């Protein structure tokens, strides 16, 4: 009689029972039931909204130095809260609160920028390796191996430090580069797994063109882990950018309001006005936490093991 594997069958049947339209919808439904996912999503949403509307809701011009604040500003005294300035001054006599708000936007730029660059490059490398296999694969993986062999922060530090100009772009690139091998490996692994999957074989047997197979079958089915990774990378990117700023390798433009930068710049004033460090740090932690929570629950939702 049939010596079929019981397990496989159970999975198949469990799936047959579940209703819904597409896998993505399915995953979303499962996520909407998880409190962790909801917390993560809310944090991320608030952050996203804030980063869009922040420039319009700041009570003061975040880039202007105010006479009121400058009057009291000394190297060893940074004015605290006063009327009109909710959190007082920053180290240059600007409205700290407004800058914190606007910081959301710039932090998003750093996080998203780094993640996007890493994602695109990583996917190009990983996709090529996964699609072509063979020597292309081995060479590209050698290359990512080399990148991986340097600890990511170290890599970011050296890039940021050795890049000719310190700027936001440099920071973004430095952080992005460290994520490239991760995305590359992830996508490659998933694509290689797809290569030998039955549905790809089926498409090959149908005589579907190679390009179509790669783009319509292998790629879309390999994106799950990459998306999850991207969410998590957003969190680490913001943290790593902050680390670079702390090391003095960040974006030196003092006008820019970005949390990591604010945190990095505040080190000199940690005894004078510790809030300058605490508030951006807390903001970073919360946002990073939000993305991590979201990413983790996304991963769980996408994991077929957790389906049922």
């Amino acid at each position, binding site marked *: *009689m*049939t*010596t*079929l*594997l019981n397990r*496989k*069958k159970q*999975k*198949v*049947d469990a*799936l*047959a029972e*579940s*209703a*819904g*339209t*597409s*896998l993505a919808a*399915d995953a979303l439904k499962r996520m909407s039931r998880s409190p962790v996912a909801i917390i993560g999503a809310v944090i991320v949403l608030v952050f996203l909204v804030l980063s869009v509307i922040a420039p319009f809701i700041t009570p003061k011009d975040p880039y202007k130095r105010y006479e009121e604040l400058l009057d009291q500003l000394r190297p060893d005294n940074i004015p605290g809260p006063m009327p009109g300035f909710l959190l007082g001054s920053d180290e240059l006599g600007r409205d700290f609160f407004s800058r914190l708000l606007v910081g959301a936007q710039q932090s998003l730029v750093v996080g998203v920028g780094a993640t996007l660059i890493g994602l695109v490059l990583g996917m190009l490398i990983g996709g090529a390796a996964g699609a072509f296999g063979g020597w292309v694969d081995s060479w590209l993986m050698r290359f990512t*191996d080399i990148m*991986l062999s340097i600890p*990511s922060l170290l890599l970011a530090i050296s890039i940021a430090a050795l890049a000719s100009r310190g700027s936001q772009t440099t920071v973004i690139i430095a952080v992005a580069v460290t*994520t490239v*091998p*991760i*995305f590359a*490996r*992830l996508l490659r692994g998933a694509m290689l797994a797809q290569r030998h*999957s*039955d*549905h790809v*074989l*089926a*498409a*090959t*047997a*149908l*005589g*579907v*063109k190679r390009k*179509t197979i790669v783009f*319509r*079958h292998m790629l*879309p*089915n390999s994106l799950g*882990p990459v998306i*999850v*990774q991207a969410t*998590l*990378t957003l969190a*680490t990117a913001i943290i790593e950018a902050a680390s670079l700023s702390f090391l003095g390798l960040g974006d030196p433009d003092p006008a820019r309001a970005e949390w990591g930068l604010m945190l990095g710049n505040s080190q000199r004033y940690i005894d004078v006005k510790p809030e300058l460090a605490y508030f951006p740090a807390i903001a970073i932690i919360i946002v990073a936490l939000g993305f991590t929570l979201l*990413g*983790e629950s996304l*991963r769980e939702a996408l994991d077929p093991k957790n389906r049922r």
Partner: protein
Amino acid sequence: MTAAVEPAAADAPVGGSLVSVQDLKVHFPIKRGLIVDRTVGHVYAVDGVDLEIRRGETYGLVGESGCGKSTLGRGMLRLVEPTGGKVVFDGTDLVTLKGESLRKMRRRIQMVFQDPMSSLDPRQSVESILVEGLRAHGLDKGREATGKRLRQLLSAVGLPSTSLRKYPHEFSGGQRQRIGIARALAVEPDLIIADEPVSALDVSVQAQVVNLLEELQEEFGLTYLVIAHDLAVVRHISDRVGVMYLGGIVEEASSDDLYTEPLHPYTKALLSAIPVPDPEVEDRRERILLTGDLPSPANPPNGCRFHTRCPWKQETKCATDRPVLREVRPGHRVACHWAEDIEAGRIRPHEVETVLVEESAISPDVSLIGPSSVGEVLNP
């Protein structure tokens, strides 16, 4: 009962050879080595298979797990590259085809897979799964025509036309297998290779799919190569059956012949091992219990591949000469040196010393690379 499966009453054009596989070999290299990987051996998954499938017939292929059935099927389709041999399909040797001509040729040979879920792209709707093949071969002739064709296909496999917008995971196992079959049918193939089309299905659903395959054959005049390890299913569906053991065909005969008069010791053992859902039969049955396990295809025994487990093994020939598939009776071929003697009862079965089979001996180099990135670590 349909006519198609009964060659005696064939009204379908059972005729000349459609595919002829000649000495097909698929060897997978086992790689290992310092710095640069060297090939240290091969998995002889398919090792010299000859078979011929006639137009309109159903050829069944049975054998135990790992004996190379799927690899043979895939090798014929060039889904894995054959190491040697020929696959002559309708006069063309598929092994020599390249690029576009191979792709075009693929239209004519289709495959139905074992696991109906994994063989369907979970992210594509049934419609796009079915249209894909049409499009690849320029059979997509305008919206209307295609729509009509799709509905036709679905009704042929017994699915409602509302299925088009649904995704594979919304179907039951049997329904998914029907989609797989519809996909194969879409490009109007001549030959369908069905690799364990029912083994993932519950028995009751299995019957539905088996019936469906039969009906379709009748309707479209298809030729099937059905791979299965369930001999009952194979016998039911096939006109002729080949029995595989360790990369080679050991016996081939018409379905009835094979079951009533198995000639190869392995076939005999196999048939006697199949449980029959009838206590009367079971009680009466005399089993030929084999000892030991299937040897590794990476290190197949010399001579007759079966001699390590064969109760009829003889002192001469068996361990040294590899028997060729020879026609013992019209339409009945067997690869055993002693087939006639066994049949005539001149040779009696005897005890077989169990030979240890090392499972690990063939395991390809286990990758020792752990997760290698922050991401992988942070995200187990």
